[in-house]
């Protein structure tokens, strides 16, 4: 009947009443209708159970000790008796202090207050009192509707500060990111000076190729960033096209907008990754914004793609010097390396920056990256940066057929193992400057060949099969703050003989590359201060009358 239902709804549910009777409170009574072992206050235990106990886990239960006189229940086991029996005493404990509570007229003082149970009536008031931003409904300023937004009065005296969402003509600069699950949510704004990199999954299909907004380049560059009094347009810095098998090519002309379209049952020009580069001044204004895209293609079977987004901020007129530590290397940061440009005679090198480093700090010293299809020849140059302190090993499988020629294969494998620009020098400290050549450690190359002793007369073809880099580092500096310093880097290439295969046969050999960091620091020698000397000299006229 509706009356009882209404009454039931209106009556606030409250928690169970607190137990305050000392004789009835038993915290070790955890099993319902069963005797808990060594729980002397358990009402489910019989005298026979008590005879099996060794000790009482709860020896005393008292009331509030601030009171002048409080009840206490004492449980103990009388082990002398045979069989052992439980003794229960209810006594009045007296607090001898003169500041004990004689009476109190504020009854709630002696117990913890029960929280208010939320009902439909008091929910709003409780939400206002205890709810914070995570529980509040979507605030109005987050609405993505263009008609609900009035941005013209917001860029008057607007100065960006760290973490403030970057505003665009309509809402915010979006950096889609996974929210609860891995699916992309477009409501994540990019914060000023917050370098972020996110990856998320978006559901796509070839049929809806042109209709999904978030896979088209236009979605990411059509709004202009509001900065102070200017509006900064987002320019396209570069476009990389990734083919279905993962090969990436950089496009030459990057000012043309490529929109998704269907071509040969594939949907091409789908945005797989966006990297925003924002240039700002020290007054908090954004003066330039550029976006680099990675476009890809999907076929009929693809149901979802992974998109990756990144945003980075650079201050205007500065060249960011990526340090990997100050001064010692920080574990996890990429090892800095560079190479000496050709053609400079030795003395001039001291004047100019002697070493050339790749501006991307993650591309200075790299190692082959294993891919899901382990074919070496299809790896297409995927490399991962070598991070200080992280030993890595990677590899691939090389399928050798009879038709392969030795020299091109050797060159391909060397390129694969070493990468396009293998550096010559590695920075010994994380903050080594390119001008100080002495701060840089040259990479020593070693060559080991697995020779078969017999077959020396055959013109043997040596192909490199593994590259092992060993980075020896030491702890440098004070005992409490040791800094990591690279002392020695050795790159060892192991080659093996490639035997000529009969035609039609194939062989698969594994190619590995690894990097190992070895700590060669010598144990620290503590330095002690000199022992204090007693500087006691007699005055020169001490033995006056006799000297």
């Amino acid at each position, binding site marked *: 009947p509706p009356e009882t239902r209404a009454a039931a709804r209106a009556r606030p549910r409250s928690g169970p009443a607190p137990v305050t009777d000392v004789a009835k409170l038993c915290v070790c009574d955890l099993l319902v209708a069963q005797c808990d072992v060594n729980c002397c206050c358990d009402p489910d235990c019989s005298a026979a159970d008590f005879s099996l106990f060794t000790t009482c886990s709860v020896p005393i239960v008292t009331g509030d000790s601030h009171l002048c006189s409080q009840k206490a229940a004492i449980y103990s086991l009388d082990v002398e008796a045979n069989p052992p029996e439980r003794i229960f005493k209810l006594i009045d404990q007296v607090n001898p202090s003169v500041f004990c*509570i*004689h009476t109190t*007229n*504020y009854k709630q003082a002696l117990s913890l207050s029960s929280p208010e149970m939320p009902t439909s009536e008091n929910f709003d008031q409780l939400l206002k009192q205890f709810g914070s931003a995570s529980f509040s409904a979507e605030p109005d300023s987050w609405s993505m509707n263009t008609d609900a937004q009035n941005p013209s009065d917001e860029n008057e005296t607007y100065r960006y500060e760290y973490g403030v969402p970057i505003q665009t003509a309509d809402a915010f600069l979006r950096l889609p990111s996974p929210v609860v699950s891995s699916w992309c949510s477009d409501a994540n704004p990019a914060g000023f000076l917050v370098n972020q990199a996110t990856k998320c999954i978006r559901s796509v299909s070839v049929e809806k190729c042109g209709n999904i907004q978030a896979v088209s380049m236009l979605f990411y560059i059509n709004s202009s960033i509001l900065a102070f009094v200017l509006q900064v347009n987002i320019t396209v810095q570069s476009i990389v096209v990734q083919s279905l098998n993962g090969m990436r090519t950089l496009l030459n002309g990057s000012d043309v907008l490529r929109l998704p379209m269907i071509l040969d049952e594939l949907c091409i020009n789908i945005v797989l990754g966006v990297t925003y580069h924002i240039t700002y001044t020290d007054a908090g204004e954004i003066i330039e914004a550029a976006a680099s895209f990675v476009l890809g293609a999907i076929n009929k079977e693809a149901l979802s793609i992974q998109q990756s987004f990144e945003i980075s901020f650079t201050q205007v007129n500065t060249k960011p010097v990526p340090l990997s530590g100050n001064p010692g290397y920080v574990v996890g940061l990429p090892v800095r390396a560079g190479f000496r440009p050709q053609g400079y005679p030795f003395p001039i090198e001291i004047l100019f920056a002697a070493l050339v480093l790749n501006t991307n700090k993650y591309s200075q010293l790299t190692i082959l990256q294993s891919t899901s299809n382990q074919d070496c020849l299809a790896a297409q140059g995927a490399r991962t940066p070598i991070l200080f302190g992280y030993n890595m090993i990677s590899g691939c499988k090389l399928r050798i057929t009879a038709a392969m020629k030795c020299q091109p294969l050797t060159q391909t494998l060397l390129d694969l193992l070493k990468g396009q620009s293998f550096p010559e020098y590695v920075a010994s400290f994380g903050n080594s400057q390119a001008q100080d050549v002495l701060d840089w450690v040259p990479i020593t190359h070693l060559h080991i060949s697995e020779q078969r002793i017999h077959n020396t007369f055959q013109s043997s073809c040596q192909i490199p099969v593994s590259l092992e880099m060993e980075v020896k580092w030491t702890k440098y500096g004070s005992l409490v703050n040791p800094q990591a310093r690279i002392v020695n880097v050795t790159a060892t290439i192991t080659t093996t003989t490639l035997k000529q295969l009969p035609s039609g046969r194939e062989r698969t050999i594994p190619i590995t590359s690894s990097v190992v960091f070895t700590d060669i620091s010598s144990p620290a020698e503590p330095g002690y201060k000199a022992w204090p000397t007693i500087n006691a000299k007699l005055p020169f006229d001490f033995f006056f009358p006799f000297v």
Partner: protein
Amino acid sequence: NNSYQLSSVPLQIVFYVNGIYYIFYFLATLAMIVYKCQVFSYPHKFLAPDLALLFVMAILEVLRLYLGSMGNLTEEEAPLVLSLVIMVGSVILSVYFLVWQTYVLKADVIINAVLLFTYGIESVLQVIAIATFFG
């Protein structure tokens, strides 16, 4: 010349002792209220009346002791009677601090009991003094 002097010496002594004791009582009660604030849960809803009544009691006490002392020394009945009336208020307030305070500590019980005892002696001596001045 003692026989012509109506002022009661014991009453004056009790007034003097009462004054000194009350200073101690006031400071002790205030200190204990501060202690209770720190150690126990003392919401403002309960703290405000206790403090207010303590200050009211201090004012009444000063008034009462002044009137009583003046009345005794000038051998006037009116101030003594007024002092006795104010004492009723003081007694009620002392009983409040003894029984109806938010937290009554054992020390509270002791000092209020002593205060009530002093009031008892004082009231008896005051009535005798009023009777003496009337007659």
